[in-house]
């Protein structure tokens, strides 16, 4: 075994100094480039910077099959501010939402760049008849595709296994959808905010692939989001309250999804451990003040909280039932409204994961601001065929 190097420790600090996002909705009018520009421009404006200050651009956008554009990153690059600059697109399915800021982090932390712009965009309304037409091609063509699967199936299967293994009740899972859709009422970009939603609404919503019902799922959406990252010295010149990226982690599990134990997402736990180790976090339950886990389905928020070490397996549902994950609770979870409330333009959910943590931790979140004085937060995204996770720990010092 190779002994680890003495020089192995990130030494250059990187902060978020601006964030922006567009409305999440079906948006046929704007091109993806135009949405990317809207979000990127806002993030730069908020940071008090111009495109000239940007040394490199990182873009995230999920499957090219949504847009029907091959090499979609290249196509988006002028809207993202990448013309004439070092430009990089990375792609980890839904995990892209939190992966691009990690890639942005290493652009700066490596010493190669001072200030970078991270732009994520997604447009799911272009593909017809339905976004499912694009999802049909995520499966193994020989083993899975002949069965004509629907993407929701695998989530239903995973949810079923999760409920069975940890004895979790559907009623408690549905409470996550209620909480997040209510939280989203304070979000100007929200697609599905609903102040009056009740548990019964979720329980009685249309069955899709049981146990998954219509209101357990975040809706397909179009939108973009962006953040600006810079090194410590510049960050303090720009703002008194930069929010630092203290830990990053990412991890992928085997392609063979039918060979995995679906009840517990081990890859999320591994990614979290990597990020916590880097951030020096030993007891996440004590040290994390606020969480933005990926919540495309209500059960995913619970599973992710557990894998992030913020609850024991099976316990997250209890914390939810007891109200501890509400905005004014002990551990506010998805105070943005999450994907369930604000919407799920896959990669663009950067804005409600990293963006929201930035606004919350710098106490700019307005009516969405959590009650407690949150200094350390964790954001997480999840993607591919239920197998990839990216985790970022952020802190206001």
């Amino acid at each position, binding site marked *: 075994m190779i002994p680890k190097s003495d020089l192995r420790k990130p030494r250059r600090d990187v902060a978020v100094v601006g964030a922006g996002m567009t409305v999440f909705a079906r948006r*046929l*009018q*704007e*091109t993806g*480039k*135009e949405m990317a*520009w809207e979000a*990127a*421009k806002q993030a*730069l404006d908020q940071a008090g910077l*111009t*495109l*000239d200050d940007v040394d490199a651009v990182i873009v995230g956008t999920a499957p090219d*099959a949504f*847009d*029907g554009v091959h090499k979609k990153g290249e196509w988006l690059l*002028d*809207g993202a*501010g990448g*013309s*004439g600059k070092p430009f990089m697109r990375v792609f980890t399915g839904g995990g892209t939402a939190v992966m691009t800021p990690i890639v942005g982090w290493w652009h700066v932390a490596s010493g190669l760049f001072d200030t970078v712009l991270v732009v994520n965009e997604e447009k799911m*309304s*272009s*593909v*017809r*008849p339905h976004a499912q*037409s*694009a999802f049909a*091609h995520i499966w193994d*063509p*020989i083993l899975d*595709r002949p069965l004509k699967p629907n993407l929701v199936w695998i989530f239903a299967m995973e949810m079923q296994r999760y409920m069975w293994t940890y004895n979790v009740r559907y009623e408690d899972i549905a409470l996550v959808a209620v909480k997040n859709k209510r939280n989203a009422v304070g979000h100007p970009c929200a697609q599905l905010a609903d102040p009056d939603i009740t548990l019964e609404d979720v329980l009685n919503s249309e069955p899709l692939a049981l146990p998954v019902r219509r209101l357990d799922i975040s809706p397909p959406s179009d939108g973009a989001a962006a953040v600006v990252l810079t090194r410590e010295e510049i960050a303090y010149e720009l703002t008194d309250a930069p929010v630092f990226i203290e830990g990053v982690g990412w991890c992928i599990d085997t392609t063979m999804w039918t060979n995995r134990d679906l009840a517990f997402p081990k890859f999320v736990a591994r990614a979290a451990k990597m990020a916590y180790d880097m951030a020096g976090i030993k007891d996440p339950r004590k040290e994390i003040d606020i969480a933005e886990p990926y919540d495309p389905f209500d059960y995913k928020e619970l599973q992710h909280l557990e894998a992030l070490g913020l609850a024991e397996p099976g316990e997250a549902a209890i914390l939810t039932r007891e109200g501890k994950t509400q905005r004014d609770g002990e551990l506010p979870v998805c105070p943005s409204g999450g994907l369930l409330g604000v919407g799920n333009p896959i990669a663009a959910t950067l804005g409600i994961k990293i963006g929201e943590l930035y606004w919350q931790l710098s106490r700019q979140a307005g009516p969405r601001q959590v009650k407690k004085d949150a200094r350390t937060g964790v954001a997480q995204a999840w993607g591919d065929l239920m197998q990839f996770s990216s985790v970022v720990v952020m802190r206001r010092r």
Partner: protein
Amino acid sequence: MAFFEPMQKATEPRHWLGDMEADHYFYGAGVMGQRFFEALRDEGKLLGSRCERCDWTYVPPRLYCERCFAELKELRDVGLRGRVKAFTVVYVNKQGEPLDPPEVFALIEFGPNITPFLHKLGDAPPERVHVGMVVEAVLKPPAEREGKITDIRYFRPI
């Protein structure tokens, strides 16, 4: 053993046919594209958007300046006449079969500080096309225009 046993017979390998196609896509023209195509369709005009700061005009118009990221608010009519900056005569289609007659593609410049415009040339024998040649857009008759780039049939020499 570093490698697995290979297949040994030409008949052993199997392949699997499939695609990555949706039924179709709706490719929207965008905020600025809408103005460009409406002007083309309804008024027979070619619009660009100008960045004052960079003194640069984009054709087709963009919502933002690629160079400085400013929002572009000023639209201008760049006219239908330009010069050939570069051209190529294409002889084959996607299947590798001959294109008869061949197709001529060109970059057309409408003036200084304006991005060139990609389109086709027509009404000109390929051997007579040259860089610097003055050309003008040939539009479909108003009734046939649909608000698409093909509302311009091609550019022809003057």
